[in-house]
């Protein structure tokens, strides 16, 4: 995208019928680190890559619990994401207080979208610079939605946002038809593999990713690092240039799995995963 004379205000249309400020806001989402979501009939898994600015700092929180039955993963301006999470929590708790019943995620998502839309139609505001992957349960089962700075929202079986998310999306596109009936373990495994796709060859370790699950009979919770590492070890291949010193817990996995085998263990004979590992994922 290039600068042009219609992009100063969000309240200015371009002759082609575009609102450039809104599109620029969507760019901000693409610059954030990746977040992935997928769902089965009964569960939703959210995963994200946690990149710290430097070795000295801690990483930013990108997955938030909104209620026992709703969680959100963000990509983009995390400050905007925090504010929206607070709004979502507030809406959920108000609904629970008045009706003693969980707010259906489909309704929360519409409220969120309407809130984002307001910021696209006021000259004194700017659009939110954050994309939200909202996972939650309602009467009709598990749902995953993507809320966009434009005020649009879409429902997905699986989706990825943020930088290098295209690689994850490619993986998910190949596999999504199976997700509806996936087990808890398989769903998380797919989330982790999709997350790894966004890492551009870097080794997937539980210290750089966060995984959260919610489902029917299972309130939203973030998996602890140990559990995540164990799940990673079940399918991960050790890349040859990473010395054992870097990854003490990878040593256990070193002997066992060949990546191709690991993928087949999961039950899919797809050879696609193996060549991807060596090649830098596509970046769009």
């Amino acid at each position, binding site marked *: 995208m290039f600068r042009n004379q219609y992009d100063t205000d969000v309240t200015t249309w371009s002759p082609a019928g575009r609102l450039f400020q809104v599109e620029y806001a969507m760019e901000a989402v693409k610059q954030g680190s990746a977040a992935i979501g997928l769902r089965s009939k009964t569960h939703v898994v959210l995963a994200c890559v946690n990149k710290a600015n430097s070795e000295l700092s801690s990483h930013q929180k990108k997955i938030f619990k909104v209620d026992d039955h709703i969680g959100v993963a963000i990509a983009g301006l995390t400050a905007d994401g925090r504010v929206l999470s607070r709004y979502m929590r507030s809406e959920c708790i108000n609904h629970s207080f008045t009706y*003693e019943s969980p707010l*259906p995620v489909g309704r929360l998502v519409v409220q969120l979208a309407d809130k984002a839309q307001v910021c696209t139609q006021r000259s004194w505001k700017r659009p939110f610079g954050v994309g939200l992957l909202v996972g939650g349960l309602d*009467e009709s089962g598990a749902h995953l939605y993507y809320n966009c700075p434009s005020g649009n929202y879409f429902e997905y079986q699986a989706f990825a946002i943020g930088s290098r998310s295209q690689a994850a999306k490619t993986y998910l596109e190949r596999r999504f038809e199976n997700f509806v009936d996936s087990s808890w373990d398989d769903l998380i495994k797919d989330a982790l593999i999709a997350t790894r796709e966004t890492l551009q060859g870097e080794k997937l370790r539980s210290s750089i990713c966060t995984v959260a699950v919610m489902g029917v009979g299972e309130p939203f919770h973030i998996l602890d690092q140990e559990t995540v590492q164990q799940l990673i070890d079940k399918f991960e291949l050790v890349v040859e240039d990473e010395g054992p010193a870097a990854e003490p817990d990878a040593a256990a996995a070193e002997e066992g799995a060949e990546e191709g085998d690991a993928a087949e263990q999961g039950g899919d004979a797809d050879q696609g995963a193996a060549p991807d590992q060596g090649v830098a994922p596509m970046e769009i």
Partner: protein
Amino acid sequence: MDSNQAGKQHSLMGSEAASERTLYPYVTGSSVVALKFKDGILMAADMGGSYGSTLRYKSVERLKPAGKHSLLGASGEISDFQEILRYLDELILYDNMWDDGNSLGPKEVHNYLTRVMYNRRNKFDPLWNSLVLGGVKNGQKYLGMVSMIGVNFEDNHVTTGFGNHLARPILRDEWHENLSYEDGVKLLEKCMRVLLYRDRSAINKLQIAKITEEGVTISPPYALKTFWGFSAFENPTVGAEGSW
């Protein structure tokens, strides 16, 4: 000048301080009795609207559906009941306007009503009603009550007003899980008959409403058979002529 201003302020403050709050009810409905049966909820109420001690209105419908899944019965001030019906109408309308697969069930409506009643009570301007909310959603039966001060609870059988004193003991003895429809109606009629005999604000014209997964049916008004042929009622003034 100053005293004038002070006087003005005083009267201004005076009119602001004059509070408006509900002091007493005017047209009231008598008891509501409700119980859970095998397929859902049964609720009964007579059709009387009393104006103090006068049985003034005799076709007041005190049982109304609220959305697909709930049934509301009320005793107490009839105009407040009508106000509550308007609140619920708006609530259900907005719920339907979402047009998604979700809908407010009886539990949600009950809690909403509890919030409304309690908030009004906090303002010293209560809705002078005791409400019974029953319904079925996804096979789950729900029956609850809210009072005018916001006290709420759920149970297998609830009553309001005099029903608490006269009908509950009967229900405690004779209610059981999985009552058939016929047995449920018989039990309700037994309670209503006792109320008819003993509650002076009850009239012999009642409706019974049923709510199941399929929906709501409210019976047309009918009367209970009564028996007044007790020997004690014959020649009541024998022994004290001139008295009644």
